[in-house]
């Protein structure tokens, strides 16, 4: 297990051998997944504002238009509402569209189509149609992204039957999940944290699928279970290292897919450690963290035996100024401090050194985009 600061992230948990020991960034893993699927299946295409420009969605679509042509990789009018409907219609007609949005916030303009059509068509038409659609979007943090460029609204999509929601935390799963999403016959909301884009992991060169609904234990521990969503897996891994310094052994679990959700793996870990702290890069109210905890507590085998707690965005709008923004997000120090309190409520208050708690990806990231 390599540390999240070493440049190579922690998935897969066993270091591969031979040719599989290839290191790839998250953003290149996304691009490779799409390119390989487009090569394999002529029905796959990519649409979205700026997918064919020089910035290429931070590089995640770079080279695709040159390789596959403007019929299969094309920009759209801003029209997010209609473009979502166009993607759904094309999917119903046998294509496999990947609709790319530069920010998750813009999906609010797509909600009618995603909730009322994409999620429901297979059901309300009695199975007569399918909607094999992938909706990619970035979620963000840092560099003053502010109120409308920082949100992670995955829980809104988890709420609606018929949508799948995945939030891979590393380059390996980014590739495996994206290939799985493209091959899935259902609409998949694919959530990518901006700060993960240039994090590296071992990623097989061959196409492979990361199965939805299977959580991964990223690091073992005995005293508390930390569940991180998306980039919060990385922050939980760092928190785990900080906790080790005060003698607390934390297990870190990555749900990978939020819908379907692998409650069994999370509940089993929580029952063993007796404590569950769920950390989301999102608000906690009606959020993924609330859902994960509710499912664990409702699990007949768990009962009232597990202490639970959530961490997420502060219950306020994300401010732009760094002096306020730093209090908005959970970070390895706040995660570790919360976990410590759960494990040992009588211990003296403890705050890890904030400098030590910073992750490489936060230090490296600069704007403006």
């Amino acid at each position, binding site marked *: 297990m390599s540390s999240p600061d070493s440049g190579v992230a922690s998935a897969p948990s066993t270091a591969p051998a031979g040719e599989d020991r290839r290191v790839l960034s998250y953003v290149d893993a996304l691009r490779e997944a799409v390119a390989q699927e487009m090569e394999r299946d002529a029905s796959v295409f990519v649409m979205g504002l700026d997918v064919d420009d020089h910035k290429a969605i931070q590089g995640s679509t770079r080279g695709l238009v040159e390789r596959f042509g403007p019929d299969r990789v094309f920009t759209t009018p801003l029209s997010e509402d209609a473009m979502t409907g166009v993607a759904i219609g094309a999917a119903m007609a046998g294509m496999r569209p990947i609709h790319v949005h530069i920010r998750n916030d813009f999906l609010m303009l797509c909600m009618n189509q995603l909730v009322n*059509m994409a999620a429901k068509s297979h059901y309300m038409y*009695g199975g007569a149609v399918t909607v094999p659609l992938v909706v990619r979007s970035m979620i963000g943090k840092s560099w003053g992204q502010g109120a409308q460029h920082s949100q992670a609204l995955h829980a809104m999509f988890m709420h609606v039957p*018929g949508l799948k929601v995945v939030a891979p935390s590393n380059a390996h799963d980014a590739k495996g999940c994206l290939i799985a999403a493209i091959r899935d016959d259902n609409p998949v909301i694919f959530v990518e944290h901006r700060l993960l884009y240039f994090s590296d992991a071992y990623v097989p060169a061959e196409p492979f699928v990361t199965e939805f609904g299977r959580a991964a234990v990223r690091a073992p521990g005995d005293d508390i279970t930390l569940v991180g969503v998306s980039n919060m897996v990385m922050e939980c891994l760092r928190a785990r290292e900080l906790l080790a310094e005060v003698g607390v052994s934390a297990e870190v679990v990555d749900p990978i897919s939020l819908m379907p959700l692998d409650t069994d793996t999370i509940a089993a870990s929580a029952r063993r450690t007796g404590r569950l702290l769920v950390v989301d890069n999102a608000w906690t109210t009606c959020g993924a963290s609330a859902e994960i905890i509710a499912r664990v507590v409702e699990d007949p085998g768990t009962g009232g035996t597990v202490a639970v707690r959530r961490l997420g965005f502060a219950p306020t709008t994300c401010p732009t100024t760094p002096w306020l923004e730093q209090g908005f997000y959970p970070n390895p120090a706040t995660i570790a401090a919360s976990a410590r309190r759960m494990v040992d409520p009588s211990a003296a208050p403890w705050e890890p050194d904030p400098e030590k708690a910073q992750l490489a990806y936060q230090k490296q990231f600069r704007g403006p985009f």
Partner: protein
Amino acid sequence: MAAHDPRLVRTLYRSLRLIRRAEERLAEIYPSDKIKSPVHLSIGQEAASVGVCDALEPDDVVSATYRGHAAYLAKGGSLPAMIAEMYGKATGCAAGKGGSMHLVSAERHVIGASAVVGTNIPIAVGHALAFRRQGRDRVVVCFFGDGATEEGVFYESLNFAALHRLPVLFVCENNHYAIHEPLAKRWATDRLGERVATYGMKTHLVPDADVFAIRDGAAAAIARMRAGGGPEFMECRVYRWREHVGPNEDYDAGYRSRDEAVPWMDGDQVARLAAMLEADVRAAVDAEVEAEIDAAVAFAETSPPPAPDALFAHVFAG
């Protein structure tokens, strides 16, 4: 007016008559509560669906609205499956899960209908995009009402279809009301065709529900679309004879008068085409239609309900 081909008159009449009589039968059945979901009747508006769909090939695609019985039937959707759907039976076209507002037919390429106004429009455009990519010579007809033209997604969809010259015939069934609100309270001007024309597409207006004019206009548009001419737009002015939702008339409700409806009823296309047929031809068609409806109602009545575990079937595909 030039005489119309009697075979065409018969074909159009049969379709008009089937839709009219099927809906009249549904209106009779509705108070029995055998149909436990909303129905929005097309009575008075059938000509738009019948005229346009007659110009289509079997492989072409129709996207309908929640007031979609006419479009579904005009495209050849199964009447027994439609009525069974409204009865909530397992044999319904959507296995009982969609009801009157979400009619669908994979065999006849009716790609579904949305209860959220305007939502079907980009879905139809997406089908056209797919057919273009697949190199298939199919066209898409997208039906919607006057209310849908007030949604932003309508203009977004027009723009994209025109930009990519997609084979979509946009057909606005302008029945003058959104639920109970008249155009005068909703539109700054009634120059809908002019608004659409600014996207660079050809527009047509049929002001009187003339089924032949609708058919001929659609046929010409579709021929141009198959030749790569890009999308076109047709406004068919029609009139909704019954209440927005449900089986009854509502001229006593205060928002409109029967006087307003009378010219439309006088111009009823079902009666008009009936009068153009020889008496024996008409009688034969009418008898056929009644028998078809009787059989469809019997099919719905005797079909089994869905099994309880169907509640969870089709949440996800695969």
